[in-house]
């Protein structure tokens, strides 16, 4: 669906050149929810805005649906943009138009069908995003979450194949974020739409992305399936972002590691293993006792996972056997002490 080859972009700020993107290459297959995460200033915003050429690269190729969009004429570029929906952090709705009129705007722009057909499509979209009751209100009368639903409905009006989400939930509270993410995930499944989203929150990636790219200093430093990147981050940029969410840094701060007298392991497991009584089994079979220092059991999109920091008490050979036993059950063991 999307192929980026060697994108480069440098901004000139006050006469100095500031590199924003350096050699970005990646592929996003159709139907995937692809997340791009990075700190502010990492270049992620520039990157997503390149996918519909709101920002032009200095060099490199952007191929969408088999078409190199950097070489399109202005007319062809407008046609391409109509096939790519975009949702913004600050919603960017027209304050002078009602909810329904905002959603109808993309249809007016391409003069798609009669007014009655346009209105029918608008009603369908408002139904989809759950705003049918608010069709004649103005954006100023809506909550943030409702405004973003209007933004999503507007982005979907022309039945795009690709949806770009530029920090779509960053201005929303956690509960509203959840409901908007559910909506985007729903749309991805129902409409078989490819979704590219950028965010600075690992929580967003964890909830809906299939694959993720971590961008730092204008480069992709890590890319892969969310479970892999999230559970086994390789780069320090990734580790610090994952740590924020898993509270791993709290363990260090708490001093629990230093005061531990036994072996401290971090156990990571995904899928069906999550539902198995692995700690009890291990303790029972190898004659060990344990205490739990920290733990998270949650989901990565639809995949259950767990990450536990456990202190074991027992003989060395039994500990070694336990470690092998855990590995055999697809539990990744990291020895912290």
């Amino acid at each position, binding site marked *: 669906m999307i192929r980026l080859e060697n994108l480069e972009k440098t901004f000139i700020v006050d006469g100095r050149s500031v590199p924003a993107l350096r050699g970005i290459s990646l592929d996003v297959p159709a139907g995937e929810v692809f997340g791009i995460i990075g700190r502010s200033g990492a270049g992620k915003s520039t990157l997503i805005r390149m996918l*519909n050429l*709101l920002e032009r690269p200095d060099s490199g190729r952007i191929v969408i649906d088999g078409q190199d969009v950097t070489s399109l004429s202005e007319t062809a*570029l*407008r*046609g*391409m*943009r*109509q096939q*790519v929906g*975009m949702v*913004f952090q*600050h919603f*960017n*709705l*027209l*304050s*002078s*138009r009602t909810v329904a009129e905002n959603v109808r*705007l*993309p249809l*007016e*722009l*391409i003069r798609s069908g009669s007014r009655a057909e346009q209105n029918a499509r608008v009603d369908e979209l408002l139904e989809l995003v759950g705003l049918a009751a608010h069709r004649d209100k*103005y*954006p*100023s009368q809506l909550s943030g979450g409702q405004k973003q639903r209007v*933004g999503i409905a*507007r982005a979907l009006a*022309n039945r795009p194949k690709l949806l770009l989400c530029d920090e779509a939930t960053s201005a929303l509270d956690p509960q509203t974020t959840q409901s908007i993410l559910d909506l985007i995930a729903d749309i991805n499944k129902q409409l078989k739409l490819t979704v590219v989203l950028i965010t600075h929150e690992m929580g967003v990636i964890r909830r809906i992305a299939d694959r993720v790219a971590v961008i730092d200093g204008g480069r992709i430093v890590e890319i892969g399936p969310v479970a892999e990147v999230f559970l086994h981050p390789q780069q320090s940029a990734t580790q610090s972002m994952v740590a924020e969410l898993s509270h791993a840094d709290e363990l260090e701060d708490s001093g629990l590691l230093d005061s531990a007298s036994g072996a401290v392991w971090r156990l990571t497991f995904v899928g069906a293993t999550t539902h198995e009584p692995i700690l009890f089994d291990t303790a029972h079979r190898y004659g060990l006792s344990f205490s739990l220092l920290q733990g998270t059991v949650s989901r990565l999109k639809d995949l259950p996972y767990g990450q536990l920091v456990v202190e074991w008490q027992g003989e060395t050979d039994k500990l070694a056997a336990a470690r092998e036993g855990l590995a055999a059950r697809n539990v990744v063991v990291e020895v912290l002490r």
Partner: protein
Amino acid sequence: MMGLDWSILDWGEIGLASWDTLRMMGWSLLFTVVFGLPLGVLLFLTSRRQLLQNNWLNRALSFIANVLRSLPFLILLVVMIPLTAWLVGTSLGVEGAIPPLVVGATPFFARLVENALREVDRGVIEAVQSLGATRWQIVWKVLLPEARPGLLAALTVTAITLVSYTAMSGVIGGGGLGDLAIRYGYQRFQTEVMIVTVVILIVLVQLLQMLGDWLVARVSKK
């Protein structure tokens, strides 16, 4: 009030002068919008980081607007007499006053339009660009509707400015309340006429401002 003799007032003439002032203001406001709105839109669009960024054109338009705005209206009135005579056949009366009024108010209104358009959220323009809108569509479907409250406020300020300009055009025989005030109130020392024209002008400006405020409140959805 001692020494004032209200019976000397010719209400028929005052009524006619008021009507002339309204006609001058109405017509010149119309032409000011016709010329000033596109000029303001162009000033905005050609400015830095906007859709039609063109530094050369922007500077040229800006220069012309500034030159016209730096001329005191009284001077403009006199300087324009030959042009006005050529355009409308006379430099006197209501017709003769309209061209200098339009030339005086157009750059003023254009600047106000430019400012009103700057208030439109850049993100909204970008969102509509991302939907594949043409520049023309962005102007008509986004910029102008979104700036409507600001544009109406600009129109109100311009209308009021025009009222004061029409009073000045009395100096060159432009007709209207200003003409009346100068010929009777000033040159013939008829203080009564001066007082009445001033009161009418005050009421007119108040009414315009109230109408403008009401319209702005009506279209504002923010």
